[in-house]
């Protein structure tokens, strides 16, 4: 219990990932959806770092690093699109985005 092993981190990662997924599924506001995806990415980052630590391999950290880079670019582009959408429609509600309806 007191000895913190890899499993502890993986469980934590799992819990965070679940929270993120709940957010993705439940949220209607696009901005909140973005937050939820950030949570997903971060939970995975924890796993990567933990595995890297417990197996003495730097690859995990490298991946976490690139994940952060991707998250940053995603935010930049995503927010830009969000702003354009908001300007055009006055809301960022997922329910309103139904132009893909067949």
């Amino acid at each position, binding site marked *: 219990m007191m000895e913190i092993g890899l499993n502890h981190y993986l469980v934590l990662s799992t819990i965070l990932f679940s929270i993120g997924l709940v957010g993705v599924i439940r949220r209607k506001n696009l901005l909140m959806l973005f937050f939820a995806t950030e949570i997903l990415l971060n939970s995975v980052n924890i796993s990567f770092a933990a595995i890297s630590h417990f197996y003495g391999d730097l690859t995990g950290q490298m991946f976490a690093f690139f994940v952060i880079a991707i998250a940053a670019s995603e935010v930049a582009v995503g927010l830009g699109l969000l702003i354009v959408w908001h300007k055009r429609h006055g809301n960022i509600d997922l329910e309103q985005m*139904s132009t893909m309806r067949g």
Partner: protein
Amino acid sequence: MELYLYIALFSPLVGSLFAALFAASPKSLIAGVVPSLLLFTSFVASTILLVNILSGGDIVHVEMMTWIATGNLYIPFGFVVDQVSITMMMVVTVVSTVVHVYSIGYMDHDKSFNRFFAWLSAFVFSMMILVMSDNFAGLFIGWEGVGLCSWGLIGFWYHKESATWAANEAFIMNRIADLGMLIGIFLVYWNTGTLQYDEAFAVMPALNSEILTWMGIFLFVGAMGKSAQFPLHTWLADAMEGPTPVSALIHAATMVTAGVYLVVRANPLYDLIPHVGLFIASLGAFVALFAASMALVNRDMKRIIAYSTLSQLGYMFVAAGLGAYWVALFHLMAHAFFKALLFLGAGNVMHAMHDELDPFKMGGLKKPLKWTFIMMTLASVALAGIYPFAGFFSKDLILEVSLIEHHYIIYSVLLFTAGLTAFYSFRLVALIFHGEERYKLFGIDPHEAYKFVLIAMSPLLILAIIAGSFKMTYFEMVTAVLPATQYHVHSVVTYWIMTIGTQLFVLLAIAFAYKKYANNRITVPNGTSKMENRLCYKILSNQYYIPYVYEEYISKPYRELSEVFWKHVDMKVVDASVDGIANIIYSTGEKTRTMQSGNLSTMLKWMVAGTVALLSLAVVFGLAVRYSDEIKLIFSGLGVQ
């Protein structure tokens, strides 16, 4: 020599394809002339091959390409020109060349002129494959090919209900027989491991005689279908719905003799099973008599000749069944010439009479159709077997064979049939060419066929007259591969008594036919005369009621059975299950279309569900790989390999 072989084989194909190019366009003479020329080329190539073989050259055996090679099965497209196949090739190319040229005149006014030549040449090509193949598989391809072309040519005037019916009948009857043949071929393969003639026949003597018997029987079933032997004979008479050149080529000279060719080709097999051979001979004798009796009273010119063909095929099977293969082949050859001539002559008469087929409505045509009269009379003389025409040599030989082999019943049947043959042949000639000019009652003004048509027929006439003189040359050639049994009646006296007796009997029959039918009192029968009301006449003119029996007891029950299957099995089981599957898919789509609401958050939810599904699969496969040894153990415990 290989080059000549390929020329002989593929010229008809080229001709067929050439004519097929114009098949849908209106008549063009070139579509008839080119295939005829190509066939003549094929004939020339065959002649060169014949000369090569006659002058002691080697048998030409080529393997064009590999056709099927899987596992132990190896079937090449191999062709062989030996003494047997060259005989068939000569018959096929001679008759078909004549028929092609004849058809240019005969089909002159037909709007499907080009299509006719495409089919006709395709037939010749298939026939060449059939006779030249060096294995059973190639034979079967040719066998089916001639069946298909025969279907296309019998049903050539497809707008006629009766023609399409006859075409389908011929095709279906042949399929039934071909099933037997196919089983025979399978048996050969299973038991010998090869389909090449020489290899298969080399293994056969070592096999169990029961297996050989079944092989012989099943192969003969195929031959029965193609050669229209009882009980599969009804299609041949109905096949006369096709154009007359087709009847001459396919239903007299070549295709129907394929059955005889098969038995001759498989002679090492039939030599091992003489009891099957005896059955073949007995059936042949029966068919000879049976068909000749139907020809006696028939009132359709072409059907009479068709029954005559049937009867002559019976003769050939007698010879083949008794082991006199070369005699069978010789009669096949001689018969091809005079029978094709007879048919072509009948075609001329039909043309002159505007497609009238009842000889009772003709009479006295010898004046307007002088040349046709001569040709048909000579062909009939040859058919009847009068010395020195071709029929005498070949048919008398068969009689001698049956006598020497001590099958006296067969001999007497055949002798009697020879008399019948002479009678019905000359009944036909007398009705058509002699007596009062009854055709005038129907307002027809007959004209002789084109000059070139008559010239085209002349080679057949010559061959019908002189073919018998080739007997010894032919015997020496063909016995290189066939059993060389000389059939000589031991005592000279018996021989002369037999020969002269037969000749007298036949001449008597001819005289009787002339006396009865060549006078001026013949009228068109209207069903009131005493003879027509006799029971035996009725039986004969209704072909022993066999078509009726087939219709009532096979076709109709089959139709009813099909209807039951259609209503209960097809509609309720097959269709229902197919529809059910379609409905399930349709309703699944109908229900799941709500998924595609266009709402992004719903899509996200489904995306997560999909991810879960894929991840579970990944885990399952990962576990399966991890524990593959244990899983294999469990499966082997369950008895699964």
